[in-house]
């Protein structure tokens, strides 16, 4: 198929349609509106369900209901809307049903702004809703990667009866790139043995997240954890660039990762032995590979569009073996490659300490810069 130029949000929406999306429920919020808008005409023309809900709260609970029937369903939103959905996300996790969620992150906290950000890493990867649960989080860095991820997201959600979140930022949602879309798949509802779709010729079914008896809830938590173990074992994804001889390894996901790629190339052109590790699955996080890289590299540079949320995961994997430096931009500011190049150059000659505090050090440099 020939390449076509698509806007990120619309491409993601169309890829979901082609992956067999049967119902979409959403609410307008910038910078993800094009997903809702695209599906508002695409779904009805295919005879599939589309509802613009009264709020994100309504949207996630419509998704919850539709997912209980076994249908392929999704919603999308941006940071403040995802916060509002957290109640439903926890309920869906507790009910063990598959749902796909797209979060087009923007600057925060609060109303913040509509510029690209990665400030929701902790919220979506580490919880957000109440209780013990995990969400599969995939972070594409290009539109093609996002498009390829949509069928995968549904497959993973259904395989592990969990929420799969495709996490991008406003820039990936708003930009255009040439892509090839996946083949059109019909909306085919699997015959799940748990789906509440009418007790015809079978015993009735109940889907709930309530387990009033604590030992029963404990068993449920263990079941979720067991599934999470399998996800951790099977669903780690990442991309690597120039790592063979890299002494400095830059680690960044999504947009920060691709901006870092430009910086890494520029550093290579200057003769520096630098590589890039770009986690694609943020949850489960590629701890083992990061740990392995820590055995080979002299130092890590973590780059994020937040205040070092993924940095904690890198530190966990490195476990104090090599120095880690951090560079972040906040509140909707996207770093330019030259900022990261400057950091790479600084690190290549700096006398780095193992017991340094990467966030505190970065803040000192930031305060001088943004004064």
């Amino acid at each position, binding site marked *: 198929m020939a390449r076509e130029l698509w806007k990120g949000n619309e491409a993601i929406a169309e890829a979901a349609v082609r992956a067999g999306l049967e119902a979409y429920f959403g609410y307008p919020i910038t910078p993800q509106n094009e997903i809702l808008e695209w599906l508002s005409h695409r779904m009805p023309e295919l005879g599939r369900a589309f509802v613009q809900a009264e709020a994100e709260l309504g949207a996630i609970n419509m998704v919850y209901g539709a997912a209980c029937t076994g249908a392929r369903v999704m919603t999308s939103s941006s940071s403040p809307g995802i916060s509002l959905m957290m109640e439903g996300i926890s309920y869906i996790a507790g009910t063990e049903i598959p749902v796909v969620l797209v979060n087009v992150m923007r600057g925060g906290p609060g109303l913040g*702004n509509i510029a690209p950000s990665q400030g929701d890493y902790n919220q979506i990867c580490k919880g957000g809703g109440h209780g013990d649960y995990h969400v599969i989080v995939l972070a594409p860095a290009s539109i093609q990667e996002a498009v390829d991820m949509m069928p995968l997201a549904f497959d993973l959600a259904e395989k592990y009866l969990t929420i799969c979140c495709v996490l991008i930022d406003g820039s990936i949602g708003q930009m*255009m*790139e040439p892509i090839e879309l996946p083949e059109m798949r019909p909306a085919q509802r699997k015959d799940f043995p748990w789906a509440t779709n009418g007790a015809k010729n079978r015993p009735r079914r109940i889907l709930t997240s309530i387990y009033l008896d604590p030992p029963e809830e404990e068993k449920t938590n263990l079941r979720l954890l067991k599934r999470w173990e399998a996800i951790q074992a099977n669903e780690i994804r990442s991309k690597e660039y120039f790592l063979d001889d890299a002494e400095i390894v830059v680690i960044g996901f999504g947009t920060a990762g691709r901006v*870092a790629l430009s910086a890494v190339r520029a550093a290579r052109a200057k003769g520096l032995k630098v590589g890039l590790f770009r986690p694609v699955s943020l949850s489960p996080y590629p701890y083992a590979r990061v740990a392995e890289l820590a055995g080979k590299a002299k130092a890590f540079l973590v780059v994020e569009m937040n205040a070092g949320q993924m940095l904690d995961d890198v530190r966990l994997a490195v476990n104090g073996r090599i120095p880690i430096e951090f560079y972040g931009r906040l509140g909707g500011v996207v770093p330019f490659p030259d900022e990261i190049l400057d950091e790479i150059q600084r690190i290549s000659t700096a006398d780095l300490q193992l017991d340094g505090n990467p966030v505190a050090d970065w803040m000192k440099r930031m305060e001088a810069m943004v004064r």
Partner: protein
Amino acid sequence: MQTEIILSGFGGQGIMFAGQVLSYAAMDIGKQVTWIPSYGPEMRGGTANCTVVIADEEIGSPLVKNPSAAVVMNLPSLDKYEPMIQPGGVLVINTSMVDRSAMRSDITVVPVACNDIAEEIGTPKLANMVAVGALLGGLEALTASDIEAALNAHMPGRHKHLLPKNLEALNKGIENARKNMIKAK
């Protein structure tokens, strides 16, 4: 090889579409390309800009601080982007809306009266295509025939009748660029 172009002006000047035309053309000749707009309140009027990156390999940052070319359709855009262009880069100035000349001599400056030319052609809305033509006059990444093929391939059927006028605007831009271009020192 990577080329970065920032196009900037008032909302409604067709800046975003001009960037998309460049992107389609780059895609059709097998290049990697990203088009990224400024988005938000400014898209309702006010200033608008987009960045187009064209490359042979996987593109890293879709945003650039120092582009290889800038097309500025109004004065605020000239003030903002003239200092940013890489030495040896290209600056297209829409002199219909800008009343000062470029200050730098280390970049190729292409002053073209995009709006006036578009008016002469009889389609004032095509100032953006004149600007695209002017850019091609100074830039090697894409040719006029690349743009022509892209317009032909991607213009929606209902707009196809506008194709000749678009090509006329494009060629006028190229023509004027050749005439007015001040090469980098």
